[in-house]
């Protein structure tokens, strides 16, 4: 029997949700019938709106999908202006202030405290510069990920930007693919870095070459069924298909139609295509794709470039991100800036857009490591650009502990999370920077912090994985983390080994300090990466690598932040919440 969500989707889904949202925007929050909240909130996701958690009723998170994280300075400025005008909540965040934008691991942008009454005005502003919230969430083609510097990167096989633009235009707002059994995440990689992180996507185009009729053709190998969610992480499986660039749209259409038709609509937990690949095996996926969905003979897979991949690969000989100054193929430079936990104050977003404009940049890029790239900086301008004041906050040469951290939204807004995340990760980073010696040779060290067993911060693919839990300390329940080690992508992708459970949040920095000291002492030399160091050790050795302990680090969020209406309010109790509110932010009577 189809699920409740499937029935809601059968009634109203896809493009038509926009008209309903505009109606609710006109009539106000109270016009959404109380007994239909679940159905409407599920549908709103398709247009990029998630209702925030308990205690924050009537407020929404809005996600703006930017293909491959690529934007113009004008678009970035608009995001900052929209954040300032519409994404300011009742209480400031102590680290980030009143208005900010979150850059996500799927190269999108998230704004919080959005009121349904403002939706039309926000869409008007975003769409006037070519930005959209369409299919940013929901059961459809999500934001396509890949390297934002495609076409500029001197280190690439194929410029995939035209391909991704075509995919985006073909599959956004397309009724044939608007109602899939579950989300559909696509990565297109043309660089030699592996920056698309295709391994963790439903559909991955990986750069490859193939000898066809005596000629070497550049294109993609096609992998299907990756994903981190639930307790069932999978790397995308090789279905033995080589795809020419001109066939990418046909192959993508075929595979997403295959998913639409054969995916499980009776159990949402089993709906992602990774489970269909488990059930069928890659051979059957290929056969059904060939027989039912494409009208040309699919070539077998070509030679990939995986041995060159370094993006989030944990290599000692290459940085695993885009931070720093890199050559463009046109002789200019792109500069990657570190944005700790991906959150940038709205005023800084606007400043960055202005600076990019001043230097003649046509491209801003958001990366899957929650950082930002400014493209097109000429050699003669580079020193002046690097001297800009804003770059002292968002540095192209940050301290290693301020560089590699990813954090999900956490209990600040999310209904699922059981711990505070972003502010804590900022505090961890600062404490580590100020107190822990960096092992010689380490330039970037990836800590991914997720608030629950969902995988929004991609915790399974980090040097150190932190995943929210609870523990008891001095008789009280406190926020804590399970700790995993040694995950990453690259030539041989590997999920983390989980080595500690329920480390109290205030003892995590002490654990990391101890761990890094052990690593530096016991490693074969600076050429042995942390990831290799972990993979060379068995379970017992990993468990014994380090101990958690209290240090000078202080954690203001140790209590149960999910029980607050907002963790940083003066009065955090649910009763103190102003929500729900009307379009002006005035409290409305609540039925709760």
């Amino acid at each position, binding site marked *: 029997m189809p699920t409740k969500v499937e029935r809601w989707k059968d009634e109203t889904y896809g493009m038509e949700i926009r008209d309903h949202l505009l109606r609710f925007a006109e009539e106000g929050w109270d016009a959404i019938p109380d007994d239909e909240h679940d159905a409407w909130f599920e549908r709103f996701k398709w247009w990029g709106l998630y209702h925030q958690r308990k205690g924050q009723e009537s407020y929404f998170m809005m996600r703006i999908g930017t293909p491959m994280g690529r934007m113009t300075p004008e678009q970035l400025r608009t995001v900052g202006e929209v954040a300032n005008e519409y994404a300011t909540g009742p209480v400031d965040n102590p680290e980030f202030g009143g208005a900010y934008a979150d850059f996500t691991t799927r190269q999108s942008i998230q704004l919080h405290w959005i009121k349904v009454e403002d939706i039309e005005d926000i869409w008007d502003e975003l769409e006037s510069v070519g930005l959209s919230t369409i299919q940013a969430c929901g059961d459809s083609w999500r934001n396509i990920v890949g390297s934002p510097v495609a076409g500029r990167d001197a280190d690439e096989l194929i410029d995939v930007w035209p391909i991704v633009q075509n995919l985006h235009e073909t599959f956004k707002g397309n009724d044939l693919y608007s109602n899939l059994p579950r989300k559909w995440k696509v990565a297109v990689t043309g660089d030699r870095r592996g920056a698309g992180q295709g391994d963790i996507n439903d559909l991955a185009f990986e750069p490859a070459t193939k000898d066809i009729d005596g000629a070497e053709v550049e294109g993609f190998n096609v992998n299907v069924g990756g994903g981190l969610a639930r307790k069932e992480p999978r790397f995308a499986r090789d279905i033995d298909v080589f795809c020419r660039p001109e066939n990418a749209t046909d192959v993508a259409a075929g595979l997403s139609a295959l998913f639409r038709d054969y995916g499980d609509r009776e159990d949402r937990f089993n709906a992602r295509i990774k489970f269909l690949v488990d059930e069928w095996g890659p051979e059957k996926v290929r056969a059904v794709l060939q027989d039912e969905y494409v009208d040309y003979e699919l070539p077998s897979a070509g030679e990939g470039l995986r041995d060159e991949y370094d993006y989030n690969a944990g290599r000692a000989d290459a940085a695993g991100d885009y931070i720093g100054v890199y050559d463009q193929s046109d002789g200019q430079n792109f500069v990657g800036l570190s944005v700790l936990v991906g959150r940038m104050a709205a005023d800084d977003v606007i400043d960055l857009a202005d600076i990019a404009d001043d230097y003649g940049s046509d491209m801003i890029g958001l990366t899957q490591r929650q950082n930002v790239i400014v493209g097109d900086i000429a050699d003669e301008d580079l020193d002046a650009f690097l001297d800009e004041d804003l770059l002292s906050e968002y540095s192209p040469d940050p301290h290693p502990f301020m560089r590699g951290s990813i954090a999900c939204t956490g209990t600040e807004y999310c209904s699922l999370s*059981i711990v505070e995340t972003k502010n804590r990760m900022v505090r961890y980073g600062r404490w580590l920077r100020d107190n822990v010696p960096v092992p010689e040779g380490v330039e970037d060290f990836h800590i991914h912090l997720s608030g629950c067993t969902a995988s929004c911060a991609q915790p399974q693919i980090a040097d150190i994985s932190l995943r929210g839990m609870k523990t008891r300390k001095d008789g009280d329940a406190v926020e804590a983390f399970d700790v995993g080690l040694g995950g990453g992508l690259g030539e041989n992708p590997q999920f983390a080994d*989980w080595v500690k459970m329920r480390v109290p949040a205030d003892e995590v920095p002490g654990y990391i300090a101890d761990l890094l000291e052990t690593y530096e002492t016991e490693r074969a030399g600076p050429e042995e990466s942390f990831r290799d160091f972990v993979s060379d050790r068995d379970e017992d050795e990993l468990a014994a690598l380090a101990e958690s302990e209290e240090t000078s680090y202080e954690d203001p969020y140790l209590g149960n932040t*999910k029980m607050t209406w907002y963790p940083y309010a003066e009065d955090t109790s649910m009763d103190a919440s102003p929500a729900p509110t009307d379009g002006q932010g005035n409290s409305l009577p609540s039925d709760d």
Partner: protein
Amino acid sequence: MADRVLKVNAFTTFDLLDGSVEGHGFEEAAFATLNVRTAREAPEEVSLELELDNTELESVPPHADRVTLSAAEARTLASELEAAADRVAATEADT
């Protein structure tokens, strides 16, 4: 080491309980998660899931345990828990 078997998020019934595992010749204590689940659609039974932290256990492999209860069985369990809770509460009130 193995990942958790059960997912844990804000909808989990208990994310922090004291648990123990006992067998012939072994007994170990560990923190545990306990969750009550029903299917989203037309549920026909109640699942009660229990997992002890596998990093704390040597005597058993990483795993979770699950029992399924009919509605009547779930109510029986609930009423026994209520009665037991009343007795514990009474003791606490006396001390």
